[in-house]
């Protein structure tokens, strides 16, 4: 368990957002909450990076956004994965796993 909040490595925000949205449609704030809770605060996505990622992913048609109403009964923008997004997530997480495994193999080497 790391002692403080980790800085995210570039390129990992997109895959993190996609992975989070895989649980279901949600608005931006819910995404950052979920990531924070899941990692017990170890990973925090900066909001600026999160929203830039969301709009970038929407342009790439990996996520689809629409306006809905939040739990607190406020108008907010929701995002969901598209079929393309789901496919992208699968290949990117495979890549990322391989990358991390390779990294670990080097780091753990005696």
């Amino acid at each position, binding site marked *: 368990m790391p002692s403080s909040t980790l800085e995210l490595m570039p390129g990992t925000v997109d895959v993190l957002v996609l992975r989070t949205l895989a649980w279901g449609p949600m*608005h*931006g*704030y819910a995404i*950052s909450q979920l990531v924070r809770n899941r990692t017990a605060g170890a990973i925090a996505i*900066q*909001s*600026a*990076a999160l*929203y*830039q990622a*969301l*709009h*970038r992913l*929407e*342009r790439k048609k990996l996520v689809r956004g*629409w*306006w*809905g109403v*939040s739990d*607190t009964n*406020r*108008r*907010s*923008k929701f995002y969901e994965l598209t079929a393309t997004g789901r496919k992208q997530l699968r290949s990117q997480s495979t890549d990322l796993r391989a990358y991390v495994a390779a990294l670990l193999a080097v780091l753990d080497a005696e």
Partner: protein
Amino acid sequence: MAGRIRRLLRLPRSASRIRADIDEELRFDLEMRAADLARQGFDAHTARERALAEFGDLDATQRYCEQQDNETERAARVTQLFEDLATDLGVAWRAMRRSPVFAVVVLATFALGIGADTAVFSVVRRVLITPLPFRAPDRLYRLYTTPAGADGDDNKLSAVELVAIATESRAFSGVAISGNYGGAVYTDAQTAEPWRMASVAPDFLTVLGVRPVLGRDFSDRDIVPGAPRVTLIGFDTWQRVFGGDPRVLERRIQLNSLDYTIAGVLPAGFVMPEPGFNVIDALQPLNVPGIARTARMSRGRAYRGVARLREGVGETALRAELPLLRQRIHDRYPEIKNGGVIRPVSLHAAIVGTSGTVLLLVMFGAVVVLLVACVNIAGLFLARAAASRRELGVRAALGASRERLVRQVLTESALHGLIGGAAGIAIAVVLKRALVALAASALPQLGEVRVDAPVLALAAAVSILCGVAFGVAPAIAATRVDLRETLGDAGGRGASQGRVRVRGSRVLVSAQIAFAVVLLVGAGLLTRTFAFLVQTNLGYTADAHALSFNLNLSGNRYRDPTTRDAVMQSIGDRIRALPGVTAVGYTRVAPWNGGLMGVRMRVVSRPSDGDAPSVEYATASDEYFAALGIPLRAGRVFTRDDRPGSPPTLVISESVARRYWPGMNPVGTSVRIEDAVPGDSGTSMQIVGVVGDVRPNLVDEPVPTLYVSERQWVGYGGNVIVRATGDAAKLAPAIRQLLREVDPLVPLLFPRTLRDVMHASIARQQLAMVLMTGFALLALVLAALGIYGVMAYATVARRREFGIRIAVGATPASIVLLVVRQASLTTLAGVAAGVALAAAGSKYLSSLLVRVSTHDPLTFVGASLALAFVALVASLLPARDATRVQPVDALRTE
């Protein structure tokens, strides 16, 4: 919810809308975070500060998101355009599949219209639009003269006139002089075939601005007496006979048994600038100055000129110069007492002649048929738009914009236009072939007619244009969709709305009827002309029992007239011996081939009156009159005793007898002939008989003619006419065989029955008549369909009214009357408009009409009645349906 619908309907977001959305989204994030922090114990101000700090670069994020969203939007719009088109096409395609009969009717109608138009246009383009294959062809003029006295051939000029114009005119930079248009026989080791040949002055091609593709042009050296004979051959001839072999130059070939050297090959697509003689196999040089110096030949009107207007000289200057030129010629050659008025006619107009009128007429007919078809289809679409009003209303209620609905309607009609147009182009290719075959003898042969890229482009453009045009009326209807009306409790069409729409359709039907009347009147006038022409008394029997062909006796073997006479006699005897042959006659140039020449005749015993009118000079063998069936009026025709050496004899036609010897019998009188008679003009000849007048063809007037005995003025072959008891065309193989036995180098040229010859002379009228009648019938059928459609629709719309009328005791007859009366008003309006249009336009037909007035009452009344009758029949069917309305059903439908 609204956003979801917006997205469902794919409505685009504006730039300001995008900015506001991003602001709201980011603000939501900040406020949620601040609220969370507040819950953790921060005071409100600190929570907001901290949330803002945690967020990161807010401005940069806003800008980045805005940029991303704008791009998303732009991409979406493009995608949407295609998606909409795909949707519209899908809807249109399903609509076509749902009502296949409608689709087939629309497509077939339209395909026929487009097909006819494209085919006719491909011919129009070739003949009327494509420039002639000469340099600056619009500066070329065909020269005509007005000969004195009788209306002879104004086509030809004398050598002295042409040379004078060529050398002295300031307006013209040159004159392309030609003559001796006719056939020659090409022979080599294997074949003997007829070639089309003409003689041209050495600078002929230079004046026209044409250069040989191979070899050299003619030069003045080629007309020096004793120079070797040279020829320029046509491109197609080069390909056909010599397989395009470039070594053909300097090769020696035999034409009319004379040796020629091929000096060059004319370019592909070259045509002779000569009305009715465009295709050429070989040219040979013509010594014009030499002829002009020869007293005997210089004044014979045997040559044709095409003059080129000098650069910078206008038509006004040209017209001003012509009288001066004429005066100069007249002063120099006072014996040319012809009035000598030289008329320049634009070469294109001269070559196209009245076939231009025919083509424009046919084009007009085809366009009108397309117009009727379009109006008809527009009516069909309008009627169907009424049926789909509910669907359009629903889509409008769901938020589809008017623009979107109009686009949907137009996509459907344009799809019909495109598919119909594609089918039309296929039809055009077939029709073009038929048209070219039908028009072969009616149009100048200016090269192959093609349905090529420009023609196809036009057809495609017209198809799409028409396709969109069909949709305009229903599209306007779509923009007027009234939500309350279509979705409200009325659920159907309001009575007044329906009436407006029916009125629109009725105007369309009236227009169709008017167009159909115009075409029917045109077809009627041409048919009456044709009927008159076919019945024309030619003065001889031009049927399938008479075969006409040409013989060409030339070359060293036939230098001696005695030999030629003997060969002609021998050939005549052999043909006469064939089974079924009753008579064999011949003449130098048959009347239908233009005749030999015009001369002036002087009666020996009378004082010279100086200005004798021109009469046609022809030669005839003893059986010529019998073979053609020209009746003998007085005296006798030639016999075997009118042979070389016996006293020269003459047979004249009735009108010559009437003109010179009114009320007297000219037989036994001696006359002298002036001008251009081979031999000397001083010989006096005795008239031995009078025969009937003949017309050269079915269109032209009879020509006063005098005949000399062919045997006394032996030519080099000529036009042979064989009369038989059976089908004369069947004799051709036997005659060909027999000629081969006499001389293998003398082929059978141009064998045709006289019936075919005469049909060719009215080919233009026939072409115009056949096509106009076809178009008129097509328009008539379409108009009938239009009336039927609109009346059937109106009857359905008035079901309720009819039901009530029947319920309160209206008889079937009164219901029929009601419907028919409505139809009659539409029909009458259309017929009246059509008659007015036809009366105003029929003058454009006048050059094709013979013995029929442009306002021929029979035709106008007939066309009107025919349409009225067809319209009546077309409206009776819906009328019958109207009488069958059950009062109860009628009340239930609403």
